[in-house]
């Protein structure tokens, strides 16, 4: 687990990814912008698990893809501290060949264990491919390395010759993890990596990710929507709402004492697996739907659904992301004065 003072591995500053919206028809004029990620800033500390949560379409995947440089962000910087003592590079300023060494350091685990593995490749080819692309010769050593990686993720070496279709969802997810580990990465971006798995298999995969983190001193950016999983696995949690970061805090503090009204509403909506608590907890319900990222409301993007909106400043002025005392960042005008409720079963 990362100490509060742990070194920063990655620093995202004012990052934006705006996609053009084009009109239908032949001319395809640009008629607007989808602000999928809009001015997001945060740090990822070495060895921690930072989770990113929020409703569908709030920009989690887009953020992950910007960090992976699958997308070219439209603004901002992603400062990465390299393995060379003290050296920091801006990933957004690099391309092609210059980016290659860092592509080995930062790897991704995908959501869909079915779609993300090439069905025509054997497990050995899938797991070994990043190594081969990085110049590793196809020899006995490669074969051994793939076998070791499979054992690391709890699969038998003998499975190497098989094709993905012969594996269950949980096993395919392990193959994806072995592949991501092949180049000894430092940072893994896991986009909904356990969301599609059944609970019993999900628990195995979460345990595996935790074990690997300790063994390889890995740092995780864990994108997810299941808040119980997030609470279990993360050191800190970042909450997004229509492309913006609205709160980031250490997990315990965020769940016990949220500082942003949207975080409070999210926590309040999590079903509690105990029927005896059903009637005891008072729930906050959000009216309306998540705002449209191509037509973001004025002022605070959450004001259209916020029970605490003052109808004045909240509607006019965009709240800046501020740092509070307890290692927390929040973007709400009234963060200090609101007394918000935490998740019902978490003691303060």
């Amino acid at each position: 687990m990362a100490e509060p003072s742990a070194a920063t591995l990655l620093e995202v500053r004012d990052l934006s990814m705006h996609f053009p919206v084009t009109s239908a028809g032949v001319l395809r004029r640009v008629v607007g912008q989808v602000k999928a990620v809009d001015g997001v800033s945060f740090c990822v500390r070495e060895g921690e698990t930072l989770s990113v949560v929020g409703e569908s379409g709030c920009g989690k995947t887009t953020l992950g893809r910007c960090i992976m440089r699958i997308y070219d962000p439209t603004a901002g910087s992603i400062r990465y501290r390299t393995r060379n003592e003290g050296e920091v590079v801006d990933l957004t300023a690099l391309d092609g060949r210059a980016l290659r060494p860092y592509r080995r350091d930062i790897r991704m685990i995908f959501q869909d264990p079915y779609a993300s593995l090439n069905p025509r490749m054997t497990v050995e080819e899938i797991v070994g491919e990043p190594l081969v692309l990085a110049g590793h010769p196809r020899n006995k050593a490669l074969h051994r390395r793939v076998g070791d990686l499979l054992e690391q993720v709890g699969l038998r070496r003998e499975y190497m010759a098989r094709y993905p279709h012969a594996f269950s969802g949980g096993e395919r997810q392990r193959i994806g993890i072995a592949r991501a580990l092949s180049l000894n990465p430092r940072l893994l971006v896991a986009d909904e990596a356990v969301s599609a798995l059944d609970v019993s298999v999900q628990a195995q995969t979460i345990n595996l990710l935790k074990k690997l983190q300790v063994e390889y001193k890995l740092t995780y950016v864990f994108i997810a929507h299941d808040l119980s999983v997030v609470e279990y696995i993360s050191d800190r949690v970042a909450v997004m709402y229509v492309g913006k970061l609205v709160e980031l805090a250490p997990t315990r503090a965020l769940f016990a004492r949220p500082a942003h009204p949207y975080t409070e509403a999210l926590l309040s909506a999590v079903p509690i697996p105990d029927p005896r608590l059903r009637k005891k907890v008072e729930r906050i319900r959000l009216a309306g739907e998540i705002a449209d990222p191509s037509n973001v409301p004025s002022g605070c993007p959450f004001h259209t659904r916020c029970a605490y909106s003052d109808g004045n400043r909240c509607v006019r002025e965009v709240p800046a992301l501020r740092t509070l005392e307890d290692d927390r960042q929040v973007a709400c005008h009234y963060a200090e004065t609101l007394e918000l409720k935490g998740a019902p079963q978490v003691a303060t």
Partner: protein
Amino acid sequence: MDETIVEVRDLRVDFPVMAGTIEALRGVSFLLKRGKTTCIVGESGSGKSVTARSMMQILQKPGRIASGSIRYRDRDGKITDIATQPAGGRVMRAIRGREIGMVFQEPMTSLSPVHRIGEQIMEPLLLHFRLQRAEARERVLEMMARVGIPNPVQRFDNYPFQLSGGLRQRVVIAMALICEPRLLVADEPTTALDVTTQANILDLIRELQEEMEMSVMFITHDLGVVAEIADDVVVMYAGSVVETADVDTTFHAPEHPYTRALLQSVPRLSADKDLPLAAIRGMVPHPLARPRGCVFHPRCDRYLAGTCDTAEPATIAVLPEHHVKCARVGQDITQGR
């Protein structure tokens, strides 16, 4: 005594496929009570959707009900065995949509992309009742408001693509409820939705159920959702019902090792983060290669050679309304842990 509205007994459903016969349901029995919510919970492939589809006679091919009964008691107390009714017959057409409404996981599978949503909600109404269009339209607008669709008059003319996922699911619920069915069968209706939207939809189903005194069969794999809405719970594993009980018993005094293991494997807020999650070892068996004896035995921490891997365990009633399918239940379950 609660009135039973559906009694499913020993239901077997097969899918004859090239590689063999998939026994999707291997003798499933449970009751649905009038005005209550029964959750069917289980991991993927356990047979939840096949159970739901059997009750409407809408199994996908090559599925067929091999044996067993689904006894439905209608408004007048008359009992119909749905299991023996032809899918396209008069009886099923009268039951589907009118007596039993259905909501699926992905709202777009129930909606036509090319028709206005108001018209789609109206369709079952015109099918089952003799109504003037104007009157039917009024009822549709009323139902749209009731399921929380804002501005029904304007929304009436929208197409599904113009709505968010949460609003689409509300449209599907409006369609399922427009004829005021006595039973709502909902197959993972909130799985594709965000937690905030899910919370609203669960509230809605709960409210409508109370207002309409409807029975609900709610299928989910999310134990949190079960704890929020169920009166009774049916736990399924690999085509069998392994445990049925009221919701409090299911969560606080479960007897089946699978139910216990499932409850322990869910991450819980405020649990000790340094302990690994109590995962169930191994995985759900392939439907064509299910183990002998108790299907759960290769993964069970109570497994006893000679007892668990020989014959399929019988289902016994540990209490009048608590049924468990395990050969070792009754033996002190804390032993050997």
